[in-house]
């Protein structure tokens, strides 16, 4: 394997491969920053250019673009509260508050560094997983995937911030929205109200952009100030170094979040949208200052940022080992394999191992180049947040509309985005949590799919599978620890307030 790794390094460092990678990195930046222009769409647009290429330069172009898009997507999340990628939504939760407090430089420094740390974790897992992944993945079936999705849903407990009842309701509403469209097993249209446009379901892009980005644009339109809510001191965009140091000091959190991103992306269909919120929920759960989450906690930024590239590495594993794409983007990558004459599966782990290892190196170099370039650009980027708000409005409102439209080239998505803008603003106005809604939305269809598969394949016996029982025990543990925490907090609440509560 070491031979393949060194051989692949030589292949990646050829001028053609490096040139393709640089082109990919530049494209990845553009794609990542523009909401709605997802990695999958751009990968599909780039596919025709790879027809006549050798496999390694072709993957340098495709993977270079793919992995950088995740990192670049975090930049608009931090600066404007508009996620560049659906998998950058969780970065908004604390990255944007930091920007509004005049700490855009620190937030960008932290998120970019954590993205690099997460990428390293993903790369290591990718290398280590290649020889052993087949038996591991084959041991996990739909019941375990269902259990993992259910475990993800339990993070509503953490993400509701003391508003469990509302959080659960918001989460169930998100699940309900995820069920819109044709039922995958019977083809029955559900909640489509006779509209053909809804047959494909509601895409995550208009939901994320509406819930988070739309509300921020309206806020900016009303307040008419700059994004950063403070007067810019001369060193307002300093803090990049402190952001980098924040991540390095909290490296265990970045490593754990990267591992969560990689592990969850192994599960087909889970993807980065789920991983980022689970990593965020985990960070909040273990934090000594959970009350700072949502107000500009650097830990929240680190946790969600670390899943970016890590989840791309994770989704590559089943694509390479089985030809099972873990996400829409890896499905397009899979077609690139076939176009280039590569057969995912055993061949990629034996005769074509050098190509597989070249992907490891491409991911590594593309991340290093992207993070390095982004860190150099942090200062000018952060200065954007001190520009007059009205001047940014036309640009941001166009980002919203193109972002929502580009996913399916449908105006219905813009209408859906506006609907979620209204829901997002109502949530803020009347103190309803938005994150559980998004968590329910991304996990809803996954839960249903694996529940159906589990029942079809195993009847009721799947409830007794050891791996599922272990996951179920973790779920119970989450609720028990929450109950204990609430009881402890109640005990420490001053007596007069308890009296008031009791009335």
């Amino acid at each position, binding site marked *: 394997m070491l031979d393949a790794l060194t051989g692949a390094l030589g292949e990646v460092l050829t001028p053609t491969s490096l040139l393709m990678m640089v082109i990919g990195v530049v494209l990845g930046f553009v794609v990542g920053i523009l909401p709605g222009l997802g990695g999958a769409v751009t990968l599909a647009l780039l596919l025709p250019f790879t027809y006549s290429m050798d496999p390694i330069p072709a993957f340098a172009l495709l993977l270079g673009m793919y992995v950088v898009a995740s990192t670049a997507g975090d930049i608009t999340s931090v600066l404007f509260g508009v996620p560049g990628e659906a998998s950058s939504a969780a970065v908004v939760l604390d990255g944007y508050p930091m920007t509004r407090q005049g700490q855009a430089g620190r937030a960008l420094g932290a998120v970019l560094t954590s993205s690099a740390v997460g990428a390293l974790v993903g790369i290591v897992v990718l290398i280590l997983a290649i020889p052993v992944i087949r038996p591991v993945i084959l041991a996990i079936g739909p019941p375990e995937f269902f259990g993992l999705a259910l475990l993800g849903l339990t993070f509503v407990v953490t993400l509701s911030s003391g508003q469990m009842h509302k959080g659960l309701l918001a989460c169930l509403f998100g*699940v309900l929205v995820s069920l819109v469209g044709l039922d995958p097993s019977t083809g029955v249209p559900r909640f489509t109200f006779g509209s053909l446009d809804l047959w494909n379901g509601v895409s995550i892009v208009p939901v994320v952009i509406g819930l988070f980005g739309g509300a921020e644009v309206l806020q900016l339109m009303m307040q008419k100030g700059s994004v950063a809510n403070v007067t810019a001191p001369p060193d307002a965009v300093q803090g990049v170094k402190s952001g980098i140091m924040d991540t390095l000091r909290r490296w265990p959190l970045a490593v754990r979040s990267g591992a969560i991103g990689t592990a969850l992306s192994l599960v087909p269909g889970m993807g980065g949208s789920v991983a980022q919120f689970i990593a965020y929920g985990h960070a909040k759960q273990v934090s000594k200052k959970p009350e700072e989450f949502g107000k500009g906690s650097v830990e929240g930024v680190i946790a969600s940022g670390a899943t970016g590239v890590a989840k791309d590495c994770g989704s590559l594993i089943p694509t390479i080992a089985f030809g099972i794409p873990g996400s829409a983007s890896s499905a397009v990558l899979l077609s690139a394999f076939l176009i280039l004459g590569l057969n995912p599966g055993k061949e990629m782990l034996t005769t074509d191992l050098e190509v597989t290892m070249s992907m490891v190196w491409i991911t590594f170099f593309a991340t290093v180049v992207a993070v390095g370039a982004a860190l150099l650009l942090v200062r000018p980027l952060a200065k954007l947040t001190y520009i007059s708000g009205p001047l940014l409005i036309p640009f941001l409102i166009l980002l919203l509309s193109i972002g929502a439209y580009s996913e399916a080239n449908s105006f219905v998505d813009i209408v859906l985005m506006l609907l979620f803008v209204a829901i997002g603003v109502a949530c803020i106005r009347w103190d309803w949590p938005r994150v559980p809604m998004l968590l329910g939305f991304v996990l809803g269809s996954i839960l249903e799919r694996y529940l159906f598969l589990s029942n079809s394949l195993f009847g009721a016996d799947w409830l007794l599978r050891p791996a599922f029982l272990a996951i179920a025990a973790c779920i119970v543990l989450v609720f028990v620890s929450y109950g204990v925490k609430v009881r402890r907090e109640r005990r420490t609440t001053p007596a007069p307030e308890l009296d008031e509560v009791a009335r």
Partner: protein
Amino acid sequence: MSANTPAHPRRPTIDAEVLGGIVLAIVFGGAFWLARGWDRQAAIFPLGVSAAGFLLAIALTVRALTSRRMRAEAETPHEEIAADDNLEYIFQTATARQWIVTLAWFGGFFVALYVLGLYASALIFTVAYLRTQDRRSWLFVIVYALVLVAVLYGAFTVLLAKPVPPGFFGLV
């Protein structure tokens, strides 16, 4: 603070929690009603979700109606508002005029987008918005709008060949 003194003044308006509970109960109830008519396999999961949501929404409404004070003190003290929404948002304090002006501009853009398509609406909105809301000079707003549209056109139509909203008249 004495036990009889409220932590913060009560709003004389309809309780948002009651209203939210009722709206969600209607949504989940409606979803349950719709799902009843589907094939069993397609309906089972939506039925479960909507039933759970309906019961929770009713519970929230009842709790909000019966123990309003307890809820206000126990669940939503000012320090413990939802984690993602704890910034200083203007939505709580905005005047009716601010809402009307903002929604008129915001909605107006999307109406223009539907009718005129991306490039024309971007041009008109940018010029009109910056002239009236930011008091910029004509020269500035025209140059700004042209550059913005040129960048959009270059990125989406020329480089990526991606469709953009064409508008009702197919102007793009």
